[in-house]
């Protein structure tokens, strides 16, 4: 699969992913002499950065991180490329000094250490040749502070019995918002809905498949839901109650994304 990204530092590189689920500081996070990961909190302690596609949500910590990254690159211990959800100036400047290709606006939550990746900052793409990508829309419906979740029936192809928001596959080049509205109408019968927000795609991992989830937030004037065959049950819940339900992967992150849209 191939996903869009924003080029920050030009260049192209390929390698195996090293994924840190937490924000990363090169000061204290990487050994300046060897490029080994020092910080256990980020996962991957002892792993070497050299040759890897280093993916982490965003940089944090002191501006000295720029210099550390420069030194790593100079000695050949730096990563082959950097992939962020949101680039920060410290890492971007360090990657520039070290000549390390860098992209952002990629949800690193869908990536796994060991994934084969090709990063092309000039074209603004990230490729995962061993992964199948499936594009879906997910519509969060909101009414007076509560959101709609539905339990998927045994007849659907994936995630049977799991709680989900309204979602559907994207076919070809169709308009994403239109697809979201169609899915809402089919699965709930709700019509007079108003778009309130979107967000960068969330990548939901399922083995060698990544669902590229395009989130939408709609307000609905009423709660009169009429389910079709795809779902067997529905509830209006407060967003913070989501963790009490067994949901499809990363539904919490999809909801968080539309309630706090990234830039």
């Amino acid at each position, binding site marked *: 699969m191939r996903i869009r990204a924003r080029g*920050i530092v030009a260049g192209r590189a390929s390698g195996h992913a090293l994924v840190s689920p937490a924000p990363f500081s090169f000061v204290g996070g990487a050994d300046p002499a060897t490029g080994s990961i020092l910080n256990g909190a980020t996962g991957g302690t002892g792993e070497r950065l050299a040759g890897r596609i280093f993916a982490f949500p965003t940089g944090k910590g*002191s501006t000295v991180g720029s*210099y550390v990254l*420069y030194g790593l690159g100079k000695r050949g211990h730096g990563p082959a490329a950097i992939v962020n959800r949101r680039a920060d100036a410290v890492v971007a*400047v360090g990657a*520039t*000094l070290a000549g390390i290709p860098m992209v952002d606006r990629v949800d690193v939550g869908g990536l796994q250490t060991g994934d084969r990746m090709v990063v092309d900052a000039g074209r603004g793409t990230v490729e995962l040749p061993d992964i199948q990508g499936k594009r879906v829309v997910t519509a969060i419906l909101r009414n007076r502070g509560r959101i709609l979740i539905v339990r998927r029936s045994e007849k659907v192809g994936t995630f049977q019995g799991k709680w989900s928001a309204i979602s559907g596959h994207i076919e070809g080049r169709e308009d994403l918002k239109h697809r979201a509205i169609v899915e809402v109408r089919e699965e709930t019968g709700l019509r007079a809905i108003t778009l309130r927000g979107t967000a960068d795609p969330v990548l939901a991992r399922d083995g060698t498949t990544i669902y590229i989830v395009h989130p939408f937030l709609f307000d609905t004037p009423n709660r009169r839901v009429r389910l079709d065959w795809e779902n067997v049950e529905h509830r209006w819940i407060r967003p913070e109650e989501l963790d009490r339900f067994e949901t499809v992967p990363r539904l919490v992150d999809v909801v968080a994304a539309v309630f706090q849209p990234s830039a």
Partner: protein
Amino acid sequence: MRLTRAQRNLLEEGTESQRKAMQILLAVGRLAEAPRLVPITSAHVSGVSYKMIGDPGLEFLEDFARDARVAVPTTVNPLGTDLAQWQALGVPPSFAEKQGRIASAYEAMGVHRSFTCTPYLIGVRPTFGEHVAWAESSAVCFANSVLGARTNREGGPAALAAAVVGATPDYGLHRDEGREPTVIVKVGVEPRGIDYSLIGLVAGERVGDGLPFFRGFRGTEGDLKWLGAALASSGACSMFHLEGVTPEFRRARVKGLKSIAITKEDLVAAKRAHTDGTEAEMIGLGSPQLSSDELREVARLVDRTPPRIPVWVFTSRIARDANPDAVATIERRGGRVLADTCLEVTLLEHRFGTVATPSGKGAYYLPSLSRQKVVFEELQTLLERYG
């Protein structure tokens, strides 16, 4: 980003450091979605104290200095010690040696030879509306708020890149819309002394990365220096307006903004919150470096009420050289006047465990940057307590 022909030439045919500098500006500009670079009249660079940037920073600066020259008047932040007095301060020779190499690298790039966090006190005073690229949060806050110049809070390497190119990405505080206030802060106190620092600390905590519009008090340039330094420490604020005082307050749109209040009780609580020490071993005056006026005032106070613990005064080389009498008075009373360094980037932790200071910025950073306990108090009170 749109580039001028000269900028494109630097990117394609400049020296290695010039090309790197252009690439840094492009990367930062891309993050901010800046449409172009705006020419600057001065730069101020952070990332100078060896205590702060260590060996990784030293390595980068020595490499970069090989073929980088600044294109506009450039000042740089304080060093980690006064290189004329380091032996008397007990600074390890290896620290002084590496600090000297950092200073030499910057000097080779053509920067001004004063190492200061207050460029605006040594003659670098951009005028109203002038675009500059400054790092050092306290100087940024002063330039934007008090002088009406325009700068974002640059990172150290980005400010250095801007110095080499003579331009910086045009976004944020360079643009009118980036200078609009986000919240009104009503201050119900007539501040004096460290109240300015306290207002800054409290407002910074509440405003975060917003842009406060203060109401209800007045202050001199010197007062606002302390307020801005504290504001930029506890918050990510790079500018404020003060009604009736700062040059852009009339242009600011305040209609419909949320309003918060700061009371005397807030200031008392903040002072308590930033005091975790009891018995101070030294009094540190700076952060930001003192002006000539402040240096002379300290000499007067110290002469009148001599303390039994050392007073270290941090100022610029220029102010120190211009005030030999004040320096002699402070030294006669057992103090030191240190130039080219400042309170929390200087090496203290090898000598002291608790520092007393009237600086809000100092009180904010000393615990983390220098592992000090802090007594945060007016200078006169400290001199009496430790007299």
